[in-house]
């Protein structure tokens, strides 16, 4: 049996939806699993059950064949014995210890020199050596996040659990630390479960992804698959973004990047530090459909294509267009009838360069 965590749990709440989830997390080779969902969906509770901080009412959690939790036989391995690195959303650094003290806190069974060596090792890995003697209250949000990560990995855990690791940060810091976190996870080669509600983080960090909503598991797959091919309207609503494609940055001029997606060049606003391999993400509601041959607009991208599929979503219609790649647009029902959209009809899709999100690929 391949090393993996299998989780099959049920937990009820008075004020929100019951959590009933079956999930398998492969541990070898080490990979990053994203638990994705809106706030209140139950993803944090699932992570806390994995950490042993909460107990489901029914079900089992197995890690590498070892029983972590079994409601039927009342087995509950406490968090202390699970060998985890857990990072809470607001980092939970100990205010009475220095950065060094926080990191050394969980290092038991090591000599004084051994502890010191390990602390210095993770301090330099996270590039926070200069903060060693500071108290958490003196640190910025980004620095606190690094210290919390350093503390979580110091004990060489067999599994990392990160609860919204970037959500407490401001946007520029988040982009930077998201890249750092991706490199760190790759370098550490520890399997990780990351809870997030941010699709850019999911794409940047995840090897596989599980979409959770109202306590149910809706879809699993690679992030790109889940985002670009949601299996139903519920998933589409939760993930919110429907066109995710591989692209190669061809040139950057005047802060606009030309990205080659299949045979088609797409113009996007270039973010600093852009790599050549990217995910190109376009939200369906940002795509406008027009009849071929109409006048110029401010949108930088105009792509001719044919309608491949039309799905009704109440007042809105989801239209999939083949314009060299598959692009999804969300238009109103009245727009559909005015444009006389039907499968096979020719149409032009337009979207602004600012609506194209480029995410560096792992």
């Amino acid at each position: 049996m391949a090393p993996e965590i299998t989780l099959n749990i049920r937990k009820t709440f008075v004020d929100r939806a019951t959590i009933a989830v079956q999930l398998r997390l492969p541990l070898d080779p080490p990979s990053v699993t994203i638990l994705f969902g809106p706030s209140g969906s139950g993803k944090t509770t699932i992570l806390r059950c994995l950490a042993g901080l909460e107990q489901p009412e029914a079900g089992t959690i197995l890690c590498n064949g070892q029983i972590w939790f079994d409601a039927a036989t009342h087995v509950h391995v406490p968090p202390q014995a699970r060998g985890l690195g857990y990072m809470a959303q607001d980092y939970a650094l100990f205010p009475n210890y220095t950065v060094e003290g926080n990191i050394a806190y969980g290092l038991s069974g090591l000599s004084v020199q051994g502890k010191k060596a390990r602390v210095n090792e993770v301090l330099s890995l996270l590039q926070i050596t200069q903060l060693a003697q500071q108290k958490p209250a003196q640190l910025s949000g980004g620095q606190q996040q690094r210290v919390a990560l350093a503390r979580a990995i110091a004990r060489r855990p067999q599994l990392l659990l990160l609860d919204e690791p970037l959500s407490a940060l401001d946007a520029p810091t988040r982009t930077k630390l998201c890249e750092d976190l991706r490199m760190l996870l790759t370098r550490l080669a520890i399997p990780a479960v990351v809870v997030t509600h941010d699709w850019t983080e999911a794409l940047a960090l995840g090897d596989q992804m599980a979409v959770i909503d109202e306590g149910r598991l809706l879809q699993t797959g690679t992030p790109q698959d889940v985002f670009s091919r949601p299996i139903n309207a519920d998933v589409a609503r939760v993930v919110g973004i429907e066109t995710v494609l591989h692209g190669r940055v061809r040139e950057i001029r005047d802060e606009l990047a030309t990205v080659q997606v299949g045979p088609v060049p797409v113009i996007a606003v270039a973010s600093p530090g852009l790599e050549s391999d990217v995910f190109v993400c376009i939200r369906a509601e940002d795509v406008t459909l027009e009849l071929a041959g109409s006048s110029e607009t401010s949108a930088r991208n105009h792509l001719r294509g044919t309608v491949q599929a039309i799905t009704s979503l109440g007042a809105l219609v989801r239209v999939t267009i083949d314009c060299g790649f598959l692009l999804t647009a969300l238009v109103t029902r009245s727009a559909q009838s005015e444009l006389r959209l039907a499968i096979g009809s020719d149409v032009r899709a337009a979207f602004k360069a600012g609506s194209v999100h480029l995410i560096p690929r792992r």
Partner: protein
Amino acid sequence: MNWMAIWVTCKLATLTSLTLLIIGLPIAYWLTYSKWRWKFLIESIVALPLVLPPTVLGFYILISIGPHSPIGRFYTDLVGHPLPFSFQGLLLASILYSLPFAVQPFATAFEQVDRKLIEASWTLGLSKLKTFYRLILPLSTAGLITGVVLSFAHTLGEFGVVLMVGGNIEGITRTVSIEIYDEVQALNYAAAAKTSALLLLVSYTVLLLVYAMNRRVWSVWPQK
């Protein structure tokens, strides 16, 4: 001024507050973290001395440690003299009487330690006991000092319980508050005034310390 009464009082108050520091911590820990549904029964018992007349408390303690009770007989067999009207009996009564003054500040301090910090400690592999003395206790210092100081000050001023359980034995159980009462009974107002002023001064100073510390008027230890 009766220095003997002051010595007895200080000895009693010190031993009481130190004992409460030892036995109050596990009680406060249990009261804070237990999920037992009937916990409020114990909470109410701990808080009883706050509202019960000291004479009532003293009466029950006297009965329960007296020569007719199993505890009283056991103690007499063990030590050779009965508990009531001894310093040890008085100490036991003081501990029970001041219990809420130690346990409640301890419990309040424990409650204020963020649950997330405790959970972080658990996931870092520290047992509940280690988490208690490496994380919860250091974060509760102000509450611990408050509890110790309040139970000390409260013992300084006790009267009813001392009279019921300790009696009025010079050098053994006669405390400052009893001394004042005796002086007034003997119409010796000058002596009563001196001793009262001393007690007032000590109590006020002690409370000043507690409140100033909780407001962090001066930084005795590094800011959080």
